[in-house]
Structures are given as structure tokens and as C-alpha cells.
């Protein structure tokens, strides 16, 4: 490894805005090498936005994102491309390239970023697909797969370049509990087989219990808890209590708060 610290990602005072509206407000967190780190929070609290900043799809308003000790926000394009080869990302809607076969989706990064021979790439593609339980599906089009299979194929694509870290945006959202649990097992398996650092965005308590080493809890753009599941549960905060008890907001309260958050821009 290029860096001796335990932390593969360090986020310092991250502020993200859409226009005038602050969505993330002073986020601080570390992701340790080899752990499954879960980003937990209600819908619309900025989980996906945080993830998009971590992989460099958005530029933050202020703050730092250190990847292996180097500031991701200050890299030039070529350094960023190099860094990205070590990252994989699974999107909420899988984001497979619809015009290509599943095999080509997985092989694309290898074809573009390496000088490997076509036969080697074919073999590597097969291996990655078998890893996620999709052996033999190389020649299928993404539209021919079920929702769970598409997410698995997305994972195989993210694993193609043997990344150091992998990001999942709501991996089990929109799937039935059985398929969702299968994906959770797969996330755990990737972590234990390859010692792969995983950052998982979710709002589902069941999968948090299954996969999380450490958790960051977000609410209204701020970190309200950081630690293991037990530590988070013991924090005395009305939102955490409500979240774990699955208790709804009082009628109208949530929409009023949402409207306020929209208009409350500096």
C-alpha cells in the first residue's frame, strides 16, 4: 500500500451545496482499510450526494476528501483517472450500459485501461461474473436480467479492475428481502475474500445488522453518530431513537420540515 495510515478515506469539514441550498454541512469521517462502512440516514438526507463526492463525481463547496492521504478534490484529470481505476462503484439503478452485453460491460474497463490480450480479458470477465453468481451470462443483454441480477452484474463490472475500495448506493433497495439478503451476503463475501474496503449507502436496518462494521448516521446534512451498531444505538438523539424504533413523524411534520429545508438557504 502507498500509505501507512489505517484510513483509506478521510473526509474533513465537507460542505456540499446544490445552488444555494446546503445539503451536506461540515461532514467529518474516516473509512478504515478493509472494513464495511455503512452510511445510514433517512431518504433525501444526502447519502447519495456524499457518495458522489467520495468518488469525485461532484466537487464539494468546501472541505477535503483524502484518498490514501491525497486530496481527491485537488487532483488533475489524469491523477483522478488513475485514482478511479482503484475504485469501483455500484449504482442504485445498476447503471449497466444498456447497449452492451453483460460480458462487454465487465470487460470494458479492462479493454480500455490495460493492454491485456482479448483471450485473457475473456477469462477475467468470466471469473468476475462467476464471483457474483452470474457465470454463463456473458452474452445476455442487461434488459434480459432481473433486478437482482443487474445489481450483481454491476458489482462484477465494479470489480473488474480489482479495486481497493468499492462503493454501493442502496444495493438492496427495490429488491425482495431474499434477493436483497443475497446481495448483503455478497458484499460481506467480497470484503472477507479480498479484504476489500466497502462503503455502503442504505436505509435498511436489516442489511445494516448483517454487514456493518462501522456506521455513520446522517440527518439534515450533519453527522449525528459514528461508530459500531451498538455505539450508535446508545447515542441519545431523538432522530436515532425514532429511526431505530421505525416511528413515523407526526402528520405533516416531515413535509413542513422538508419545505423549510428547501427554503432555508443562505
Amino acid at each position: 500500500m502507498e500509505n501507512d495510515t489505517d484510513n483509506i478515506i478521510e473526509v474533513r469539514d465537507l460542505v456540499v451545496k446544490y445552488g444555494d441550498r446546503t445539503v451536506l454541512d461540515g461532514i467529518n469521517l474516516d473509512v478504515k482499510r478493509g472494513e464495511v462502512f455503512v452510511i445510514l440516514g433517512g431518504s433525501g438526507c444526502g447519502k447519495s450526494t456524499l457518495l458522489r463526492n467520495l468518488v469525485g463525481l461532484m466537487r464539494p463547496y468546501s472541505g477535503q476528501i483524502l484518498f490514501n492521504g491525497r486530496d481527491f478534490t485537488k487532483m488533475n484529470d489524469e491523477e483522478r483517472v488513475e485514482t478511479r481505476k482503484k475504485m469501483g462503484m455500484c449504482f442504485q439503478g445498476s447503471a449497466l450500459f444498456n447497449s452492451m452485453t453483460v460480458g462487454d460491460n465487465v470487460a470494458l474497463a479492462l479493454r480500455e485501461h490495460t493492454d491485456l490480450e482479448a483471450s485473457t480479458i475473456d477469462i477475467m470477465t468470466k471469473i468476475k461474473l462467476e464471483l457474483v453468481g452470474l457465470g454463463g451470462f456473458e452474452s445476455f443483454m442487461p434488459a434480459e436480467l432481473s433486478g437482482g441480477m443487474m445489481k450483481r452484474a454491476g458489482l462484477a463490472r465494479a470489480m473488474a479492475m480489482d479495486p481497493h475500495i468499492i462503493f454501493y448506493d442502496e444495493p438492496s433497495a427495490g429488491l425482495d428481502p431474499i434477493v436483497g439478503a443475497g446481495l448483503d451476503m455478497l458484499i460481506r463475501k467480497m470484503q472477507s475474500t479480498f479484504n476489500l474496503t466497502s462503503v455502503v449507502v442504505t436505509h435498511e436496518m436489516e442489511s445494516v445488522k448483517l454487514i456493518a462494521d462501522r456506521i455513520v448516521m446522517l440527518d439534515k446534512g450533519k453527522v449525528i453518530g459514528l461508530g459500531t451498531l451498538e455505539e450508535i444505538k446508545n447515542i441519545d438523539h431523538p432522530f436515532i431513537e425514532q429511526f431505530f424504533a421505525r416511528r413515523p413523524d407526526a402528520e405533516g411534520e416531515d413535509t413542513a420540515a422538508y419545505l423549510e429545508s428547501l427554503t432555508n438557504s443562505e
Partner: protein
Amino acid sequence: MSAILGNTGRATLNALYAASTVCVLMVDTLNWMIWQPLRGKGLRVRSVVEHFVEFGVRSMPIVGLICGLIGVIMALQAAHTLEKWGAAALIADLVGISALRELAPLMTAILITGRCGSAITAEIGTMKVAEEIDALNVMGLNPTKFLVVPKFLAMLLAVPCVTVLAMLIMILGGAFAGVVLVGVDPVVYYNQTAGALTRMDLLSGLTKSFFFAVTICWVGVFRGFRVSGGAEGVGRETTSSVVTSILIIIIVDLVWTSLFFSQ
């Protein structure tokens, strides 16, 4: 009053923003089309060929058919007036010059906008909505190199090629009408056509079609990247992509024609 000023200001800002986005996109495309390939970063030749087949070869039947029919219509319309003066043979001049200078490039551009400009917007827009553009970025693959450059090169090749075909068929359509329906002597018609057309007419039409190609591709790509908010966003941008593209084509045509004829 302040509302009017505010709206004018906002509209100006939006226009400036759009213009700056287009410029950035343009510089980026030229970079990935010329500079990066020279540095050995590769050009996706196969993708260029595939797009050329889609934009060019597959457009030929419909463009040919429509331009042939327009040739016939032009000849018949012209005959109505010219025959009164006993100058039916001049149909050849009229059809030939209009086809080369104006109608073949314009009709080709408009038809390819409808067929391919809209498809470009829809493709890029759908990819954006489905986070496929983000996926490319995260994988360290540049969307401009991947999606824009092949389309741009293919369009630059395809539109002039199809335009030449359109010119030819439009003249043939006119000749058919002039000779068979109006009764002009074929030899006279041929000589009239050959005598009327200059290399300048051809050049003027082809240069135009080159600018039309740039317009079709730009508007399509720009609108595609602007898509937001799901499937209906794709539909909205696709429709307005076609309208914008045709409007700009006509404006480019006007500017070009006035420059060409003022000399």
C-alpha cells in the same frame, strides 16, 4: 419593472451559461478528437464507422426518396410559369441551381436532424438519467471520448456524403419531370443543366452541409447532456433538440447564403 429587468437578466445569464457550456464541450471534443489521439490515447474508429452507417447509409433511402420527389415538384411548379414564356428548358437551370445551392443540403440536414439528431439526444439523455454517464466517469472513461467524438466525426462525414446523393437524385427527379411530363427534349435538358451549374454551386452547397453537420451533432449532444429528471426529461429535450437544430440550421443557411451572394 424590476420583474422585467430580473427576467431579462436571468434569460441573459441562462443564454450565457448555455453558450459557455457549448464552448467547453466543443473544446473538449476537439481535444479528444485531435490532440489526445496524437498523444496515443486512441480514437474509437469502430464506433465512428458504426455511427457513419447509422447517420449516413441508413439515411440514404428516405433522403433519396424525398429529394427525388422534391425535384419532380420543383420542375412541375417551374413549368407552370416558364412554359408561358416558351422557356420550358430553363426548368433545368432552376432545378439544378436550387438543388445544389439550397434544397439538397437543407432537406438532407433537416431529415438527418429528425432521424439522428433526436436519436443522439435520446441516447445521451437516457444514459444520463440511468447514471450510465456517471458510471463511465467513475470507471475513468471520458464520456466525450466515448460518446461525443465518434458521433461528431461520423456526422461530419455522413452529412456531406448524403447531400451529394440528394443533389444528384433531386436533379434526376427534375429531369424526369421536365422530360417525361413537360416534354423538354432530353438532350436540351442535359445541356441546359450542364451549362447552368458551376463548381461554385457545388462548393457552396457542400460547405453549408458541413456546417449543418456540426449544428446537428452539437445541438443533439448538448441537449442530451442537459437532460434531467427521468424519462419525461428525455422526451422534452429530444423534442426541443429537433426544433432548436432546425432553427439554427436555417439561420446558418441564411448567414451563409447572404455572405455567398454578397460577393
